[in-house]
């Protein structure tokens, strides 16, 4: 189904919304910053909240090149790439690198991995879903369109039909548990509106005044009407005919209430009534096991009304999440606790970003570029000497960011010079092993650095990791073993794994260790390499 068809079919539903949007625009959003001014305005807002507290220094080139490769290409730079950047004398080389990486072939894959982990939270994967994300990020698909395709997946469009996996995976029955419709409802609120409505399922939220039970129930009405289609071989979701509003009552006062489908904070939609046999646009077909397409589809209603520029929670959510991706902490933190009692650390800044992403028609690449250009992004993570560490929400120094399993995997391959080693099939095995070792457990958002016994045993003993340190023509350990000068060896070791030169002290420690272990140099070189791979510095984007 094309976008225009969808608009025609649901025209009645959306007119009121477009009017509301037009009015909002006419009533005067503050003038949008020119794109080039945005980084400066962001930095000014950070500085104004910091007031007299000093801001940290800018990161050095080595830290910057590592950080921006990780964020925009999903891996550390190779030692050659790092050297090329460090040797580059041009004044605007940082901007050049940002633009090169955003235009590069690894950027879509990085986004695919990032949004897979963010949206599926390690529940599992499907080739159809992968294809949807891949084609979406290769085309730099705007966020509103991407969400629209998820909220109302089109089974007739092969490139994007896998979007249904977002729903179908969550509707799978696990053991004897009931289908988790409330969980799906909750995730739509959390991931697309930044609102965790879980506690509003049974009553108005006790502590969060703006989360009403009807917000949960209005979404729930949509999802408890859905099912996994079993007439198709790919993930697809169907809807039953919805004829009446959902009944609910607060567990506190037991007063009976009803609601039809409703976007949280929005208007309830009337459920249309149809003549008998008119309720289907495409009637069910028992022969093909096709369940029918109802004329009134609440999922279509949500897809039209939720991911739109006039929905402030929707715009704020993606602005906040992209900020989190680059800056390591949401302006609203936790990311899914967007409400009046949990104020953003920088309210004006969130407004600005939110307006900007609307003005840029939800172009995420453009927003990431603006964020990467800020001084805030480019600051060092170094603690100021002699004072209390700045609070993370001040952004006075840059925040350390957890590396995802995918970033770690690719970075280990780059660091050890093994990038070309795994073939395509082995690559999937490699990826699965890293996700198992470093990914959070299913349904747990990957926000903070959270190493586990599982991950440490993996790095300590798993052959997949240790094999990367076996000397092979051209790989790191083999190159290091050819280097007879221990000081030069230290330089290459640190540049390859940590993307920086060693300090004098670190170089001396390497030389001393190698001198003491001259008779077992291969083992010593391997041990040095392993230790840096296992270090906190390697496991973080700092």
């Amino acid at each position, binding site marked *: 189904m094309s976008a225009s068809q969808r608009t025609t079919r649901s025209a009645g539903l959306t007119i009121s919304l477009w009017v509301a949007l037009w009015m909002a625009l006419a009533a005067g959003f503050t003038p949008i910053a020119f794109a080039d001014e945005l980084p400066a305005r962001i930095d000014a807002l950070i500085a104004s909240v910091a007031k007299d507290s000093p801001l940290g220094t800018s990161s050095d080139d080595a830290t910057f090149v590592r950080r921006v490769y990780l964020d925009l290409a999903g891996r550390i730079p190779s030692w050659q790439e790092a050297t090329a950047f460090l040797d580059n004398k041009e004044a605007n080389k940082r901007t050049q690198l940002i633009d090169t990486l955003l235009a590069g072939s690894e950027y879509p894959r990085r986004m695919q991995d990032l949004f897979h982990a963010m949206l599926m939270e390690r529940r599992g994967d499907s080739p159809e879903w992968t294809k949807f994300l891949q084609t979406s990020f290769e085309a730099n698909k705007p966020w509103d369109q991407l969400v629209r395709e998820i909220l109302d997946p089109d089974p007739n469009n092969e490139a994007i039909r896998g979007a249904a996996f977002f729903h179908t995976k969550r509707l799978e029955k696990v*053991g*004897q548990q009931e289908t988790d419709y409330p969980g799906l409802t909750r995730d739509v609120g959390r991931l697309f509106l930044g609102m965790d409505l*879980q*506690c509003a*399922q*049974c009553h108005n939220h*006790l*502590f969060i005044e703006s989360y009403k039970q009807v917000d949960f129930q209005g979404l729930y009405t949509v999802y408890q009407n859905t099912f996994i289609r079993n007439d198709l071989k790919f993930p697809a979701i169907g809807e039953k005919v919805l004829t009446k509003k959902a009944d609910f009552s607060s567990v506190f006062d037991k007063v009976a209430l009803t609601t039809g489908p409703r976007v949280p904070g929005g208007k309830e939609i009337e459920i249309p009534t149809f003549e008998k046999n008119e309720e289907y646009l495409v009637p069910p077909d028992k022969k093909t096991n096709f369940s029918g397409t109802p004329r009134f589809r609440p999922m279509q209603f949500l897809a039209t009304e939720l991911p739109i520029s006039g929905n402030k929670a929707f715009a704020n959510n993606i602005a906040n999440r992209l900020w989190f991706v680059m800056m390591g902490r949401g302006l609203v933190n936790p990311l899914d606790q967007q409400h009046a009692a949990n104020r953003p650390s920088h309210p004006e800044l969130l407004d600005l970003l939110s307006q900007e992403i609307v003005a840029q028609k939800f172009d995420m690449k453009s927003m990431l570029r603006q964020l990467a250009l800020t001084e805030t992004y480019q600051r060092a*993570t*170094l*603690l100021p000497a002699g004072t209390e*560490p700045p609070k*993370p929400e001040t952004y006075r120094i840059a925040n*350390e960011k957890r590396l995802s399993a995918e970033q770690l995997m690719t970075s280990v391959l780059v660091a050890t010079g093994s990038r070309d080693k795994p073939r395509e099939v082995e690559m999937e095995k490699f990826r699965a092993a890293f996700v198992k070792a470093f990914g*959070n*457990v299913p349904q*747990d958002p990957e926000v*903070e*650095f*959270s*190493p*586990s*016994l*599982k*991950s*440490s*045993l*993996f790095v*300590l*003993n*798993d*052959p997949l990791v*240790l094999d990367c340190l*076996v000397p092979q023509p051209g790989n790191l350990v083999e190159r290091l073993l050819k280097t007879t000068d221990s000081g030069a060896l230290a330089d290459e070791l640190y540049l390859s794994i940590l993307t920086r030169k060693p*300090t004098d*002290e*670190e170089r001396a*420690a390497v030389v*001393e*260790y190698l001198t*003491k*272990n001259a008779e077992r140099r291969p*083992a*010593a070189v*391997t*041990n*040095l390499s*392993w*230790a*840096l791979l*296992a*270090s*906190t*510095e390697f*496991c*973080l984007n*700092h």
Partner: protein
Amino acid sequence: MTHNPLCKPWEHRLSRRQWLGGAAGAAAGAFGLGDITSPAFAADLKKKYKQVLFIWLDGGISQLESWDPKPNTEFGGPFRTIPTSIPGVHFSELLPHTAKQMQHLAVVRSLCTQDDAHSSGIERIQRGDPKNRGVVYPYFSAAVTKLLGPNDSGLPPSVWIKPMSGGFIYKDAGFLGPQYGSLAFGDGKPPENLLRHSSVNDQDLLERSQLRTLADKRYSQTHRAGSTEANSFVYDMGLELMKRQDLFDASKFSPRDVERYGTHDLGRHLLLARRMLEAGVTFVKVNSYGWDSHGDNFNGSLSLVRKFDQPFAAIIEDLAATGMLDNVLVIAMSEFGRTPRVNGHLGRDHWPEAWSLVMAGCGVKRGVVVGSTNDNGTYVNSEPYDIGHMFHTWFNALGINSQKTEYNNNGQPLPIAHEGCHPVKELLA
């Protein structure tokens, strides 16, 4: 590497005080006690490490063929009773070894719980069946490791010894978060990647650890402390567990112990559990399966109860002999009991209305029987106790005030046990 400049991993292991103080930072804070509210609670805990052995007889042991026999009655079944080491207390004749340990035990015969289905009952019982507040409560294992906090054994706080597969079982932790899940040893076997790789010798392993620690120490001089603390914590635990591979080496058990505990699954697993407790693991859970005797209950019990009796009596005897029982709370139970009425297949069905469990050690009174059932065992005729009462009792036995301590779930205060229940005083020493 004599007098090497590198520091030793144990020099960096977080002190217990740091963890208890919740000073470990955001990344590692999950391990701290920062989000439990109870004044002066952390200080009390430092006195002595408490531990728990939790034996789960999955499917439902028959109380009539174990702790609450009713011989010569309508539903009593074919077995006789035997006296125990406490005068006046009788067990089923299927528990001859355990009967000799009754002076250490406390038996509850007045359980009356809410669920007669395995699928939901197991969870409800092990989560303490709290009031529904829209959150998933932790299993007892996760609750205990959270509330007691880490000890200094360097080992995982919660392990689960079970037949079949192992792995990292996190769902039991509920809202406490996956870090309070259990490390499960499938059939008593070690976790994945525990064995040192053949290409790495002991010297390499030591040096790798020292070099990593040195790198982390340098990094933490200029960066926030939480990340390196968390990273070091998991490497130290991994290395500690690698050093303790003897824990999994069955050949290290004395032939006498192997004979006393038995060579069947539950025997081997309880012997391994003893070793885990001795090594300092806070919570050891041991599962035994196959207790759902809807058919042929009596032959089934003859085999199963005996398989339980021998190693259970052995571990109680051993823990008492070494004095460990003073600080180890032992619990053996199922999700419910079995119907007094015998069905057409000579089986007993699910019966949450009137059943029994046994506990021992730590702050539990020794040699007592609490509660009773009517003459044919169909209903409780003393004050009935729900699982919530047991949770209160166990927490108090561990030195945790169950009526004052609360979880803090992102600002939502949550009682650690059902607030409609209370500790059972007759069970507490």
